[in-house]
């Protein structure tokens, strides 16, 4: 069993698709310094998409919609970048990448990082649990357990699903040196 969950879309760069790509090697500067880039990048992506949801002064609903889309993109991108940075194995030969793709009815995030065998196994187990649980219940369960221990694993993914109605998928591909390329995809309906 490969542990994949859901389907990772193949992005077609047609006239209805706008996209942005980021890629970086987190080891090139200390994590603490690198961390602030998550926020900068996430806010940039949030601001970027607002161009496609213009304000109409005669329609107050457009302001709310723009603010909601900016907030959702910024939150999701920040979580994906934080997770990538926490779990990426810098000894493996591929960078962290993040693609934001804006289509007519959806925003698609695809984030890729590399991880060693043990980290990948642990993450797959979480992904499987996520796929077979009620996300609302799992959220409360994680927090109630977290109140006793220190765990908060996966809370970002659960927030995307529960609060933003996002659809998540994962792909695990073996690469050199016992490593895996882990792709996380988040689809947000707009």
């Amino acid at each position, binding site marked *: 069993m490969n542990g994949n969950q859901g389907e990772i879309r193949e992005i077609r760069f047609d006239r209805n698709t706008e996209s942005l790509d980021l890629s970086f090697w987190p080891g090139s500067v200390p994590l603490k310094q690198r961390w602030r880039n998550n926020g900068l990048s996430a806010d940039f992506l949030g601001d970027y998409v607002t161009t496609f949801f213009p304000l109409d002064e005669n329609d107050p609903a457009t302001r709310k919609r723009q603010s909601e889309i900016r907030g959702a993109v910024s939150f999701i991108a920040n979580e994906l970048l934080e997770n990538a940075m926490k779990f990426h194995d810098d000894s493996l030969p591929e960078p962290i990448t993040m693609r934001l793709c804006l289509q007519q009815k959806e925003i698609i995030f695809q984030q890729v990082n590399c991880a060693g065998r043990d980290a990948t196994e642990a993450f797959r187990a979480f992904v499987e649990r996520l796929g077979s649980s009620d996300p609302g219940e799992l959220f409360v369960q994680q927090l109630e357990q977290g*109140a006793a221990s220190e765990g908060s694993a996966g809370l970002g993914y659960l927030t995307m699903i529960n609060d933003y109605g996002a659809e998540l998928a994962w792909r695990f591909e073996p690469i050199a040196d016992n490593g895996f390329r882990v792709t996380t995809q988040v689809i947000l309906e707009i």
Partner: protein
Amino acid sequence: MQSLSGEGYKVELDAETDSIRLIGALRLGGLAEYAPLSQLLENALDDRTKLTIDLTELEFLNSSGIATLSKFVISARNRHHCALAIRGSEAIAWQGKSLKNLKRLMPALELTFE
């Protein structure tokens, strides 16, 4: 006034009004980095019968921050003695999406939006 601050955020405890204001964007790297904030929140529950958390100027909170706030709400619920109120803003998108979950953790929580 007791306070905490870092790049892009500020937290202030006002003992006179029994309130804590969180301001800016909080995206610290995990629960350990949120420990000083957790401690400030927990300590504020001591010897109080009411406490208000004012989030009306908190533009961004990452999932570790959501976990920290949620754990605090669970703790306030379990300690019984302090009535907890949270003030949010309708103008800040994440709050409309995520603050309602705190009500699930503590039904007695007074959650208001302005």
